[in-house]
């Protein structure tokens, strides 16, 4: 008997897949912490966890695996360290690649991932990550939630999206719009964070993990390479969005197949670039990310 016996319906090859597939989780505060925990319990071994921040006390209401002590330390615990701690508490000898920085600095390791799950608040960040995933043909799962003021209280809403090559992207689905980017840019730096609570994050994260599993270890024949699930946290339902069916009628015009790959790739420089330009490109990504942040301000 092994610890994975109860999920043998995932197939004879499931242990090999769990041992060898690499999954990145970007944004580890809310939904990302649930996803890390669930993937570790499922038995995945290779993780890339990315978050530039350390915890603070306000994260304790939703960050799975965080303790009071993490926030009380003179130097509070990095969120990537909590993710690693959660994984190691479940999974024997995992490979956890931690990036305590912006995801844009981790392009090389992200290119080698089999699935990327983004739990990012920023619309711009979602957009950039979706573009990256389409360029390098990586299935991208995005989750997000928000709380809206209504006439009779509040509405908790959210979404889970699976975007794959040749399927509608976040722009096709109306999650990333020029208007949303503009509004976000205007709000940037204002006091107060977006409302976040643990239970909707858990629902969205579980659905995201379900999508990861049906991609990598399909247990039925009607799997899909694109999904848009809308969450109504007041009615406690998750339903497929009509937007996906509408968007899927036309090829994605934002990320055409001809844009796949690194536009600066040159096979004649392949060995040279691996030895000498890796750190430079890493630094360049940091500079671009920094300038982008300043522009948003």
């Amino acid at each position, binding site marked *: 008997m092994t610890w994975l016996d109860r999920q043998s319906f995932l197939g004879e090859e499931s242990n090999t897949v769990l041992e*060898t597939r690499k999954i990145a989780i970007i944004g580890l505060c809310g939904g990302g912490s649930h996803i890390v925990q669930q993937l570790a319990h499922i038995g995945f071994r290779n993780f890339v966890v990315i978050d530039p921040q350390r915890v603070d006390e306000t994260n304790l209401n939703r960050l799975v695996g965080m303790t009071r002590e993490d926030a009380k330390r003179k130097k509070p615990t990095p969120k990537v360290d909590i993710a690693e701690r959660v994984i190691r508490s479940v999974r024997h000898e995992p490979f956890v690649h931690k990036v305590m920085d912006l995801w844009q600095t981790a392009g090389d390791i992200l290119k080698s991932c089999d699935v990327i799950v983004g739990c990012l608040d920023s619309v711009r960040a979602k957009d950039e990550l979706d573009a990256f995933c389409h360029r*390098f*043909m990586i299935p991208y799962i995005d989750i997000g939630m928000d709380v809206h003021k209504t006439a009779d209280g509040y509405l908790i809403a959210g979404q889970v999206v699976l975007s794959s090559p040749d399927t509608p992207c976040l722009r096709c689905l109306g999650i990333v719009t020029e208007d949303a980017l503009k509004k976000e840019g205007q709000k940037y730096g204002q006091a107060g964070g977006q409302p976040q609570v643990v239970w909707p994050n858990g629902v969205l994260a579980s659905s995201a993990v379900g999508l990861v599993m049906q*991609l990598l270890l399909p247990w039925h024949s009607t799997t899909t*390479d694109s999904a848009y699930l809308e969450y109504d946290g007041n009615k406690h339902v998750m339903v497929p969005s009509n937007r996906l069916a509408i968007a899927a009628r036309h090829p994605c015009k934002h990320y055409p*197949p001809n844009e796949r790959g690194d536009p600066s*790739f040159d096979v004649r420089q*392949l060995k040279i*670039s*691996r030895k000498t330009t890796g750190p430079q490109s890493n630094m360049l990504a940091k500079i671009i990310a920094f300038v982008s942040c300043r522009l948003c301000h």
Partner: protein
Amino acid sequence: MKARIKLPIKMLAEMRADLHRPHPFAYERVGFITAGACAYSDGALLLARTYHPVDDEDYIPDKTVGVKIGSGAFRKTLQRSYRPPAAILHVHSHGGRGLPNFSGVDVRSAREFVPSLFGAVPRMPHGIIVLSGDSASGLLWFGPDKAEEYAFEFIGVGASYIKFGERP
């Protein structure tokens, strides 16, 4: 260096179906994939963009080989691959199951025509792929004067995400 080839599952199914269509006189069909590329942790990654069957009129009757294609097929492929620069992968199928092997004719003819592709698109790798019903093999050239290397593995992206055709 390890080279991987990533392609949409739908394209894979489309290619298998297309390559199994009978031709008026050729014994088998061939096509071309265009692909982007990027450096990868331990080598290179080729990212399939489009698949183009060779047009019927571009086959040349030749009973000494299973299939022979003319300059028109290569000209059309080079036109598609020039801008943006794309890797060119000649593809055909041997059918059957399991890891397919290239025939001697496959390798000899590839050694003749693949290096010439670098004249038109020097910055990208090029090569040949042979499919089976459930796997594939690839031979890739990373320069006109360099020896070919087997693709390390294929990655199919789509409604299920699969890896196949792994070579040690």
